[in-house]
């Protein structure tokens, strides 16, 4: 049984619907629904962060877009050459430990130069690798929705109010290390309760965040609406109104701009 929330918040449905109604052309309902569901989940406690902390991470991911320190570091030959303080999300400064702020900004602006040491530097105090994985998943979910909105010509969705609750603090069984910078579940379908994470598809991209299975579920939710359902993603005859070759051209160009090898 998936742990992730499956019921969208009615108030968020209205708010996101209003945002996307400002697009230059009508937006499919499934895309609206996916954004609402992920925002609904964002407001609730995850496995390692409370709802308030998850929203603060989301706000940091947005603030990172205009962070002067990140911009200077991006231009440097090595990111380690530039030190200083990040621009912080207003009103959220006390919600997050300092050592989670830098990795959130870094993965938004300079992820192609991530190293195991840089991730490791963030671990300590109350922050574990699983905290990092969940934070990365939140940051990228917000980035994904925001960039879709930027394309559509709509405002970014307002972040919801947090829902009270404590994190689950449970790691999935079967994590392995050594293949990536972070521990992951193996490529095959995991046992219950995480036997909804793979389907027939084995892909490292689906394994990457699997130390926090709900982060993979968020990815699957958004992917199905913004790209193509992952269980048919490798069938190159499947597309949308946009042709598959058009989709893959764009995918390749976005990857190249981001200096992404994958």
């Amino acid at each position: 049984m998936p742990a992730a929330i499956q019921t969208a918040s009615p108030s968020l449905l209205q708010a996101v619907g209003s945002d996307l109604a400002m697009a230059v052309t009508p937006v499919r309902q499934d895309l609206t629904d996916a954004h609402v569901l992920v925002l609904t989940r964002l407001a609730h406690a995850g496995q390692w962060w409370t709802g308030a902390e998850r929203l603060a991470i989301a706000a940091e991911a947005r603030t990172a877009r205009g962070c002067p320190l990140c911009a200077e570091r991006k231009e440097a030959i090595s990111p380690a050459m530039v030190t200083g303080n990040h621009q912080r999300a207003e009103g959220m400064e006390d919600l997050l430990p300092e050592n989670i702020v830098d990795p959130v900004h870094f993965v938004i602006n300079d992820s192609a130069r991530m190293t195991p040491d840089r991730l490791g530097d963030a671990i300590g105090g109350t922050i574990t690798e699983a905290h990092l994985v969940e934070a990365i998943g939140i940051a990228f979910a917000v980035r994904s929705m925001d960039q879709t909105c930027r394309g559509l010509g709509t405002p970014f969705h307002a972040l919801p109010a947090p829902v009270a609750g404590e994190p689950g603090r449970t790691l999935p069984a079967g994590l392995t290390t050594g293949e990536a910078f972070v521990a992951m579940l193996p490529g095959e379908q995991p046992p219950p309760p995480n036997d909804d994470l793979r389907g027939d598809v084995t892909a490292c991209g689906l394994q990457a965040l699997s130390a926090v299975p709900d982060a993979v579920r968020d990815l699957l939710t958004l992917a199905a609406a913004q790209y193509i359902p992952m269980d048919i993603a490798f069938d190159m005859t499947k597309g949308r109104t946009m042709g598959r070759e058009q989709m893959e051209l764009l995918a390749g160009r976005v990857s190249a701009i981001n200096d992404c090898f994958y």
Partner: protein
Amino acid sequence: MMLSVSMQQQGKDVELTGIMDGTEAVDAAIPHGDLITAFGEAVLLGSDDELAKARAALLEAIGGDAFVDTCGVIGHFERMTRIADATGIPLDEDTALGSATIREELGINDFTMASQTPGVKD
């Protein structure tokens, strides 16, 4: 590699340099590929004015439904590229084998994260 496969499904070959070099180099065999690429570049790198112009041109060319698809694809790959890099995952084995020539030709093996895939960089 997935672009190549999708074109092969249609019995066509495709020139991939537009992926690395941008709009001017996009293969004309991909319908409106130049406008799609220009729009993607504008979302990621452009000013609001540049984005508005690219958006209007693309919307007129491909229509509303495909335009919405385009915006979603950009959002999806803004996420997937960062997930891959931030977590240091290797290429899937099949993808690594099937993309060896393409990666070499386009210079993709020079990207930092290439070292995460066995056999790509020493």
